[in-house]
């Protein structure tokens, strides 16, 4: 069954058709799709707090409202990516509110704070241009139908952000004096960070499954020049210097790529070239404001929880109790494994809808026993009823991101 399914899948992909549901996908395709969506959702989401911290410095109420409208767009774009992930079996709440800040997958640039209106509009002109290149490519090429259609809205709105960035940059530059100097300083540190946005050069990159699966169409070395060919002429047209120039039909960087960046001082040292390993370890360590940005939305969620009153607290306690029960054979709890399909309260009886990873699973009696024992220990619970269900069947796509990471750390490839 697996092989005929994957032959049909290869056929769809080769004919340039769109994939529409999980049942048509191979597990590898599903994994790459989810990974690509997480990067996209995380990038849109983190831009909201990053832009918000700067929008508060807007020079007028009108400008502030433009900033807020852009932030609202970014949240809606994040919603599109996370909702698709949800339809693919991930928990949206777990992805947004329960991940460690360092586990978010967005470009390093957002970890360096935007501290003024000028820096915000430069971000609109350069970061959103990078988003426009990357998402435009996905919008054109993506083989997953729901995402391709969802990006129609995203592309229209990114274009508006870009225009806001360009209009304001032009206006600030024309004002001259200290305002223009501030604009130049912002471009000086933000330009090379956006060049980095496109990732490693192709010759250092491992083979990309995203290209094979048509999740995107262009490589890093094709997208980077696309960005340069829009940003470099624009900056020249408003009298702002960038460390790149045109040679015949292409654009060349005027500094060693990569170079060393001092995030606290927002300063590049072009006399100190570094290796891509250095850059990768800077990215991995995340930047100065990573935890703060993520806390901006995670903290309000955790404050919101206790206010919700008692009627939900037992339900919540049951879920956390279930999350404390490990699968007898692997270091993963039942909730992260995705075998708990539902919890219902009927008076003092808890009804759990449960599946197993395979029929005739030898550990099933042990798991049922563990659940009963653990839930009966919860105050307010007198009886535990467990309904074992096989529809929908369990698949590895039901595991949470944390669950998958736990199994990977244990040495299982998932």
């Amino acid at each position: 069954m697996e092989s005929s399914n994957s032959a049909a899948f290869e056929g769809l992909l080769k004919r340039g058709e769109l994939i529409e549901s999980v049942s048509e996908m191979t597990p590898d395709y599903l994994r790459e799709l989810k990974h690509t969506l997480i990067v996209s959702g995380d990038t849109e989401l983190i831009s909201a707090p990053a832009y918000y911290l700067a929008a508060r410095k807007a020079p007028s109420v009108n400008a502030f409202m433009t900033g807020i409208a852009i932030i609202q767009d970014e949240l809606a774009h994040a919603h599109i990516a996370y909702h698709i992930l949800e339809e693919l079996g991930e928990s949206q709440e777990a992805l947004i509110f329960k991940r460690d800040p360092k586990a978010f997958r967005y470009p390093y640039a957002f970890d360096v704070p935007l501290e003024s209106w000028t820096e915000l509009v430069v971000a609109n002109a350069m970061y959103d241009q990078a988003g426009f290149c990357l998402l435009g490519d996905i919008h054109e090429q993506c083989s997953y139908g729901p995402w391709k259609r969802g990006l129609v809205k995203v592309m229209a709105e990114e274009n508006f952000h870009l225009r806001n960035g360009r209009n304001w940059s032009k206006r600030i530059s024309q004002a001259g004096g200290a305002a223009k100097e501030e604009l130049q300083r912002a471009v000086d540190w933000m330009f090379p960070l956006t060049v980095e946005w496109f990732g490693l050069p192709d010759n250092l990159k491992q083979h990309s499954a995203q290209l094979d699966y048509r999740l995107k169409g262009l490589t890093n070395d094709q997208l980077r020049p696309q960005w340069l060919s829009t940003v470099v002429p624009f900056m020249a047209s408003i009298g702002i210097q960038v460390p790149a120039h045109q040679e015949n039909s292409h654009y060349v960087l005027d500094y060693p790529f990569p170079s060393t960046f001092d995030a606290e001082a927002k300063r590049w040292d072009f006399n100190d070239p570094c290796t891509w390993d250095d850059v990768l370890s800077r990215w991995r360590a995340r930047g100065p404001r990573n935890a703060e940005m993520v806390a901006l939305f995670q903290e309000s969620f955790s404050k919101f929880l206790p206010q919700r009153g008692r009627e939900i607290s037992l339900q919540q306690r049951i879920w956390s109790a279930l999350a404390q029960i490990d699968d007898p054979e692997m270091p993963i709890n039942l909730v992260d494994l995705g075998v708990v399909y539902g919890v219902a309260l009927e008076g003092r009886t808890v009804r759990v809808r449960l599946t197993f990873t395979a029929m005739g699973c030898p550990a099933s009696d042990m798991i049922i026993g563990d659940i009963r024992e653990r839930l009966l220990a919860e105050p307010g619970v007198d009886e535990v009823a467990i309904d074992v269900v096989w529809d929908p069947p369990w698949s590895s796509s039901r595991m949470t991101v944390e669950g998958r990471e736990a199994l990977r750390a244990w040495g299982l490839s998932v």
Partner: protein
Amino acid sequence: MGFVRVHHDVQEYEVFARKTRLEPLRQVGAVVAPDDELAMAYARATYDEERWVEMMIVPKAAVIQLWAPGEAEA
């Protein structure tokens, strides 16, 4: 498909809209909410990219699928 939210039972709604009287309704996205009222608010706030002449939401559970992509060709 049920979705997990901490506070409530929620359901998914498909969002349909059109820009002009001439064009047909099309699906513009989806929202997940505990009730119709909130689902309407989410749909309005999330899919505000156009000045729609018409917008509606339909609980996904109410949609009856006759066949899915791939099934008719098989």
